[in-house]
């Protein structure tokens, strides 16, 4: 190997180093592929933890007041009073609920969809040697880990974890006598910092490091999706960071940013200056909160596009529509946030404004979904595991999106706000929506990262079981919500059941309450259905079928033009792009695909 010279641009070969030690290579790596895998593995762990919290909550909902089997004793030993006799207390239920949301959104889905897939795939797909700021990339992962540890540690401190929902509404959040809320805020500050650094990295990389010939309109849609996602994170997270600092000050420094004058807490006037506004928190939270949900869905849409084109062997129909739609979604998502606040007493003019923008934003979402559906027409469809997940994404996201419409209208939201209908809506979008997209991505890019395919049979088992049980879990929740069953009730609504409290207004019927049992069983079965996936994932790394070429899916995008796994620096020599991202079945070519780099 030649020693490096000062003018690196002249020598195209891979930079010569001493072979880095284990720590440098795997723990303190600045290579985007390693960091992507680090994010991916950590995020999947948090996905599992978040699921476990919910699995325990579902027991309480199905069988309120009964001790938890298997884990009840363990909980009692670790958490003491809140799990006395193995029965989940109301406070513990709230803590699990708040942390389920926080962990799933900020520690599992966003890191997996944006940071893990983005880090691994985006530089490869644009023909870059790495991300633009590799050391910042490493720091952003480390901030994420620190934030995650803080969140997990909060379970074990006196008073327990945060209990005021993932939305941490004030004054409840600051009034609850647990330091868990403080941990939550500090953890959020680390997570927000991690996301901001990541966003800067993605945007800088996509803007500056596209290979020669990779024009904006030749970018794979996955890159466009990540680009818009990064912008949303960049601009929407800072107000939440500011709000988190203010809530922290309310909690530890006695300020009154969010304490209104005259607040009475447990019978006594709160010893604060007052003059603050609880609604201010809600505005700042949802200013992030709404773009955040687009952060959750856009990367999955990007993955679905890649997988669909590859497995229909035809270009996407309406590439430009996709691009303009995703840009429109990005822009509009920043001005719809108060549709989460219709019931806070805002006037009709302002709620009409937000209702209008909310309705308008459904249009580009529908366009994107329609583009995907239309692209199937006339395709030569290969029903492999990634394709099954990508195909299922379409109707599942469709259901999730359409059920959002009654929530977006302020008058119908009056009945549905804070009910199980909302839970069903957003879980449909994120669970059989985004997570299915992410599963598709894992099965699709696994061979590029490891050189082996995941087992196809068990992939299909995983798919069908997940699809069936996801629907069994979330479909009944629409009915529950429309019947008036509210969110965050630790007894699963038993207090309001016709059986226990017949005269109570809004009493819930037996079948609505019984749905809790079926939903819980389906949820546990859903968890069991992931076991083949987990085994498949780890087993295939060492024993999966080795791929015959670097491009086992016969795909057109640049990541398949690298060696497998891609070395440090990705491309042996600088790569040039000559055509669009989805040139499948081009007439006159011997093969049914033409890579982007082919002249």
């Amino acid at each position: 190997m030649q020693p490096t010279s000062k003018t690196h641009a002249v020598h195209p070969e891979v930079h010569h180093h001493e072979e880095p030690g284990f720590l440098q290579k795997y723990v303190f790596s600045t290579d985007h592929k390693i960091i992507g895998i680090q994010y991916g593995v950590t995020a999947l762990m948090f996905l599992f933890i978040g699921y476990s919290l919910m699995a325990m909550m579902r027991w309480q909902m199905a069988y309120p007041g009964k001790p938890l089997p298997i884990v009840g004793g363990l909980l009692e030993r670790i958490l003491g009073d809140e799990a006395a006799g193995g029965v989940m207390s109301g406070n513990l239920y709230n803590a699990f609920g708040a942390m389920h949301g926080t962990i799933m959104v900020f520690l599992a889905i966003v890191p997996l969809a944006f940071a893990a897939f983005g880090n691994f795939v985006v530089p490869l797909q644009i023909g870059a040697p790495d991300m633009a700021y590799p050391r910042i990339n490493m720091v952003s992962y480390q901030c994420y880990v620190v934030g995650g540890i803080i969140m997990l540690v909060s379970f074990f401190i006196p008073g327990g974890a945060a209990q005021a929902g993932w939305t941490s509404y004030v004054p409840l959040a600051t009034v609850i006598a647990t330091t868990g809320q403080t941990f939550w805020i500090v953890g959020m500050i680390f997570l927000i910092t991690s996301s901001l650094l990541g966003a800067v990295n993605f945007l800088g990389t996509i803007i500056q490091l596209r290979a020669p010939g990779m024009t904006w309109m030749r970018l794979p849609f996955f890159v466009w999706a990540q680009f818009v996602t990064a912008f949303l994170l960049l601009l929407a997270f800072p107000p939440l960071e500011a709000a988190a600092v203010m809530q922290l000050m309310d909690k530890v420094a006695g300020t009154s940013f969010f304490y209104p004058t005259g607040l009475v807490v447990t019978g006594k006037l709160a010893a604060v200056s007052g003059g603050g506004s609880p609604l201010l928190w809600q505005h700042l939270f949802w200013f992030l909160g709404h773009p955040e949900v687009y952060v959750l869905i856009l990367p999955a849409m990007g993955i679905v596009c890649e997988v669909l084109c590859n497995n229909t062997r035809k270009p996407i129909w309406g590439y430009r529509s996709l691009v303009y739609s995703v840009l429109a979604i990005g822009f509009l998502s920043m001005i719809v946030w108060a549709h989460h606040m219709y019931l806070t007493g805002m006037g009709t003019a302002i709620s009409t404004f937000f209702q209008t923008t909310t309705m308008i934003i459904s249009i580009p979402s529908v366009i994107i979904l329609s583009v995907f559906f239309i692209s199937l027409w006339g395709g030569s469809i290969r029903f492999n595991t990634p394709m099954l997940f990508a195909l299922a994404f379409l109707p599942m996201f469709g259901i999730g999106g359409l059920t959002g419409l009654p929530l977006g209208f302020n008058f119908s939201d009056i009945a549905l706000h804070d009910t199980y209908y909302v839970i069903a809506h957003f879980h449909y979008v994120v669970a059989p929506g985004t997570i299915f997209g992410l599963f598709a991505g894992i099965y699709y890019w696994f061979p590029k990262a490891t050189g082996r395919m995941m087992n196809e049979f068990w992939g299909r088992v995983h798919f069908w079981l997940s699809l069936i049980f996801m629907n069994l879990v979330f479909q009944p929740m629409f009915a529950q919500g429309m019947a008036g069953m509210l969110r965050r009730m630790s007894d699963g609504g038993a207090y309001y059941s016709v059986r226990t409290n017949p005269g109570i207004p809004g009493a819930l019927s037996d079948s609505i309450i019984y749905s809790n049992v079926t939903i819980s069983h389906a949820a546990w079965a859903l968890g069991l259905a992931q076991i083949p996936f987990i085994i498949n994932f780890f087993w295939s790394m060492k024993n999966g079928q080795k791929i015959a070429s670097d491009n086992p899916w016969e795909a057109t995008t640049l990541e398949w033009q690298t060696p497998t796994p891609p070395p440090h620096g990705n491309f042996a020599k600088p790569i040039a792009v000559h055509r669009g991202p989805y040139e499948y079945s081009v007439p006159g070519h011997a093969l049914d695909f033409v890579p982007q780099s082919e002249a």
Partner: protein
Amino acid sequence: MEIPYIVQPREDTGLYNAKVGIWLFLASEVMLFGALFSSYILLRVGAEVGTWPHGLLNIPIGTLNTIVLITSSVTVVLAWASLKMNRLGRFRLFQTGTVLLAMTFVVIKSFEYHDKFTHYEVVLKNSTSMTGHIEGSPMFWNLQKLNAGKIESFTFHPDAHQAGHPDNRAEAGETKGAHEAIKIATADITKLESYGPWHNTYLAIYFTLTGLHALHVIAGALVIGCILATSGAWWKRDPERLTNRVEVSGLFWHFVDLVWIFLFPVLYLL
């Protein structure tokens, strides 16, 4: 393959990587301070009529700090210009000036903060209330601390004009001792509170905004100082890269100045 455009700009964007990065970061900072400014507006507009304090901040000192920061913005850009003109000595001179001005700003700010932390509102059992300073200028005293420290009484210097009176713009609360000093017994006190962020929402948002801004000043000065300290070695090794770093840190510094340009009138004057 090496990462391109670290030093040389990319043709179509006209930018090198670090510059794109810092502008993106500054965009996020605009939203961060923007959220705090929005909070300020909301809290102020939402306050009961007559409760929003005026004249708690010293305007000549604030003006001085504004001039300090503006000057540091000029020295930072002149430092960069000097490097572009290959004048390393000039660069060092201007950049040292920047760091000194930054330190001056922080020192002045800490005096302002100290003045607030030693300023008190005391409410007596007979329902009278006064604002002023305590003999010896202790910080953060309250009733709990008095009882814990077994302090039975203290000397209090009431302000010339009592704060909270809406017709006392520009004078309230700042002059010491124009009234006679009086002795107050701890037993007579219902509430003793310093003018920290807990005292009212105006001070809460003031300390948050200026505190966050001061953190940015310190961070920026540290980065500029580090680049200055290592500039000799970098100038020899890769002068263009040094110039770019100076430019990028300068962009951050200008942003910090920009925030203050809005902070000063909003908090001190309006």
